[in-house]
């Protein structure tokens, strides 16, 4: 029988990451990586002046 482990958030990183991990016999047998935040710059940029895109995209 496998155990399922959730780590949310993973610390000492930049931003927000969640992991769901399946453990069996003392080792990881499967893993799912999840970003729990939405970015949305692709929605903000259309319609704007391309010369200013870097200034906004840089904030990622």
């Amino acid at each position, binding site marked *: 029988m496998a155990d399922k482990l959730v780590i949310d958030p993973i610390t000492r990183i930049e*931003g927000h990451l969640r992991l769901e991990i399946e453990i069996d016999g003392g080792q990881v047998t499967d893993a799912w990586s999840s970003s729990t935040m939405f970015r949305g710059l692709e929605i903000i940029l259309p319609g704007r002046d391309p*010369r200013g895109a870097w200034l906004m995209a840089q904030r990622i």
Partner: protein
Amino acid sequence: MRAVEDALGIRIPENARILRNLIAGIQYVQDHVIHFYHLHALDWVDVTTALQADPAETAKLAQSISSWHNSSETYFQGVKDKLAAFVNSGQLGPFANGYWGHPAYKLPPEANLLAVAHYLEALDWQRDVIRVHAILGSKNPHPQTYLVGGMSTAVDPESESALNADKVALIRKLFVKAKQFVDQVYIPDLLAVASFYKDWAGYGEGLGNFLVYGEFPDRAGNMLFPGGVILDRDLSQVYPLDQEKVAEYVTHSWYQYGDGDQTAKHPWDGETQPNYTGPKPPYQFLDTEGKYTWLKAPRYEGKAMEVGPLARVLVAYVSGNKRVQEVVNSVLETLAVGPEALFSTLGRTAARGIETLVVAEQLVPWLDELAAQMDAGDVTIHNGDKWDPATWPQETKGWGFHEAPRGALGHWVRITDQKIANYQCVVPSTWNASPRDASGQRGAYEAALIGTPIADPEQPVEILRTIHSFDPCMACAVHVVDTEGRELVHIELEGSM
């Protein structure tokens, strides 16, 4: 910026190319050192046992691995006293929430004290060396002096307000300081710590597919870290990079595509339509059979890829970069491991140090190149030929790439009637933290974790080792803290199947 320059067919001036290399170069060095000491070291270093260290033993160890000046017994006694005062105050600050005392920690107390000393020194060092961003980019983070067509950092040896000879001299001093810390502190520490954890050359391997766009162009357009693709751990060849082969799936991501979620879209035709189907918080588990993340799943020729320092070092090595080959061979020799050790958590962490060393060596030569340009009277920083939108075609598209410290970063833009019609960013952590795709292939983190030994599921320090070896950056630095300022870490353990 490069995406827009590509779309408009703009060539930037030499000075702008060098300035961009300088800003990105010092960022690598600062970022990687911070990552090693402040984000990753505590996965390997048990801070609390540093209090049991004999400062004389730490001094002996420090002097045996490096000529760094802070290495006396008195110095380490001072660090130990500072740490003791910290622990006794009950306010652990950055050292709170560690898995202290975990059996997976292998360093002797004197090495732990050495690492704590350098953790603190690196904090001061990084604040100083990144002043280069303030000088060349006006601020850090997010330098402000970029411009489509070049840079806005005025360059003029005769001017008080521009980048002049005095400022070049200050930057040179900071670059020397940056390189010295890398040579005498970061690399010796990395090798010393790694020598106690060689078993981690056997874990965290991951996909075995590596993608690099390339960065740090020289005058002729050759890259210090060339672009290329390595597949299936085959170090006998590098495939040429073709950005047309990049495509993103949303099968397991909280988005929907107009023509169904089983297909992949090239970023020029990318869509960003949020479609959250996950559970309502608070929840225990995500629906990992369905959609489970805000990241799309980028693939190259349909394959999941790892990006970042290990990818860059491998592609440079196989492409014949002599300096990278030299440093890699020397690291492997020092640790007495073969090249297969690179495909691991330890290899990824070592590759970050290797490329830091290689970039740190280039900083002063790049600055000399800029100074020579200035001396020769070339102060051009911007190509304004295409600045006026009236000169643009009615419809165009472009691709811009960069090797960020964390890996391959691509922006794709379509411009119609002088406005952005579509803009898609595929950032390094989208590759590495990618979810599964339509055919169920795992992303790099997911693949790398399989087979990781877990001594105690309540204290999964081993998972952090592998995940931190990728240096995750999940799009935005949001820290969740509770009302007492402790970072909220939620670990659930459940017999589920």
